[in-house]
C-alpha cells in the first residue's frame, strides 16, 4: 500500500508543491482586493500569513513520523515545505514591519525587546532564516552531513517558539492556537518514541 502511494508521489514534481502552497497566499490577496477582510484588513493579513507559516512548518515536522509509521515518504518535498514555511514567515514579518508598524524602527526595536511574545516570534524567525539559507545541497556539503543536521535541529525550538508567540499575542486563551501547540507536541513526541520505521521485522518472522 505504502509502495503504491510512494509510486504516485514520485510522479509529483516539487514545483507542484510550491504551486499548491501559493493557494493560501492567492486567497489572501483575493480577500484583500475584494474587501473580504473588513474595514481593518491589516491584522487579518498579518495573522493569516503567520498561521500559514506555522502550518507548513508543522507539515515539515510531520514528514519523518509519517515515514516511520506508515512508510509513506514525503522526503522529496521536505525542503520545499520548509522553504515555503519560511517564505510565509518572511511575509508575516514584512506585513508587520510595513503595514502594522509603518517602518517605525525605533518603536519596533523597543517593542521587540520589551514584549515577550515578540521576542519569541523574532527568535523563531531568525532560526528559520538560518535554516532557509542552508536548505541547499552546497550548504550540506560545506557543513558536512552531521554539522548540517545539528544546525537543522533548530527547527524544534523554532516551531515551539512560533506556537507560543501566537498564544501569547492574544488577550484571552483561545482554543485553536492551543490545539496547534498540542499537535506540535504530539509530533515531537512521536519522533522520540518511534525512532525507526515500524512494520518490516514481524513480517520477516512470519515467513519462517
Amino acid at each position: 500500500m505504502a509502495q503504491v502511494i510512494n509510486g504516485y508521489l514520485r510522479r509529483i514534481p516539487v514545483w507542484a508543491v510550491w504551486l499548491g502552497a501559493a493557494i493560501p497566499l492567492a486567497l489572501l490577496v483575493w480577500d484583500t482586493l475584494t474587501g473580504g477582510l473588513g474595514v481593518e484588513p491589516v491584522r487579518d493579513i498579518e495573522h493569516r500569513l503567520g498561521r500559514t507559516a506555522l502550518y507548513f512548518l508543522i507539515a515539515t515536522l510531520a514528514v519523518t513520523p509519517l515515514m516511520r509509521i506508515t512508510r509513506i515518504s514525503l522526503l522529496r518535498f521536505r525542503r520545499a515545505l520548509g522553504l515555503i514555511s519560511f517564505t510565509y514567515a518572511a511575509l508575516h514579518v514584512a506585513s508587520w514591519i510595513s503595514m502594522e508598524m509603518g517602518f517605525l524602527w525605533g518603536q519596533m526595536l523597543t517593542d521587540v525587546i520589551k514584549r515577550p511574545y515578540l521576542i519569541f516570534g523574532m527568535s523563531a524567525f531568525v532560526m528559520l532564516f538560518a535554516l532557509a539559507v542552508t536548505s541547499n545541497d552546497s550548504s550540506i556539503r560545506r557543513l558536512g552531513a552531521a554539522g548540517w543536521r545539528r544546525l537543522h535541529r533548530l527547527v524544534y525550538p523554532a516551531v515551539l517558539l512560533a506556537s507560543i508567540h501566537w498564544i501569547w499575542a492574544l488577550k484571552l486563551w483561545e482554543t485553536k492556537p492551543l490545539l496547534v501547540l498540542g499537535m506540535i507536541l504530539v509530533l515531537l513526541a512521536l519522533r522520540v518514541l518511534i525512532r525507526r520505521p515500524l512494520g518490516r521485522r514481524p513480517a520477516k518472522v512470519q515467513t519462517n
Partner: protein
Amino acid sequence: LTGKPSGLSTDEAPNTLEEITNYNNFYEFGTGKEDPARHAGNLTTDPWSVEIGGLVDRPGSYSVDDLAPANALEERIYRLRCVEAWSMVIPWIGVPLAGVLDKAGVQPGAKFVAFETLVRPEEMPGQSRPILDWPYREGLRIDEAMHPLAILATGLYDDALPNQNGAPIRLVVPWKYGFKSIKSIVKITLTDSQPRCTWQDLQPSEYGFYANVNPEVNHPRWSQATERRIGSGLFAGRQDTPMFNGYADQVAGLYQGMDLTKNY
C-alpha cells in the same frame, strides 16, 4: 436626527459609517471586531429607561427623550482612541453629560459617577459566557463628568445610534481610551467613592480608573506612543498619539499635580 454644530468638534475627516459600524469592541455581542455588527441587531432599544440614583435630588427612571431631547442635541465630531492602539474620528450626536446630571440634581457630596450597561443575555449573546463580570461598569470623577467634552450620545451621523455602537444612549469621553465610553447605559449612580470599573477589576495592572490617553504611559504589553487610524489603507502607517488624545488644552487642568504614571 440633527445636532447643532459645536466648537468642540475636530476638523479632521470623520471615518465612514461603514467603518464606524463594522469595527467595534462590544463584548456583550462577542469578542470579534465584527461580532457587534453581526449580533447586535436583535437588541430591543425601545422602550428604554435609564435609572438615575444615588446622591441626586431627583432620582428615578428617565427615558432617552428626557435625557437627550431633540432640541438639545449637538453634533460632536471627536477622535476616538482605543486602548488597543487604533483610532477613528466619529461624528456623534448627543448632549453634554453635565446637563443630564444637572437635570437629576447632583448633591454636594457626590464625587463620582458610576455607569452600568444593560444585562440581557437573551439579546446579548456575549453575556452568556463569563468573558467579563457582567454588567459592564464604568465611572468618572465628578469634575470629569461635568466637563463640557463629556457627552451622552444618542446618534451617529444623521441617524439614531446603531445598536453595535451602544444604542440607544452611551457615554463619550474623547480624552480617555474607548473602553471608558460605556455603551447602552441603563444606570447612572452618583456616589461619594470611586466606583468599580470592569476592565480595571479584570486586570488592574493594565487598565486604570483614569485611562486617559497618554502616549508616555505604555500598556504593559504594547506601546501607546502611536496608533493606526482605521480605514487609512494598508500602507498608511501609524500616527503619533497626542496627550489626552489631542484634548490636552481642555482637560489637562483636571489632572494638575497628579502623577499620571501612577494614576493611569
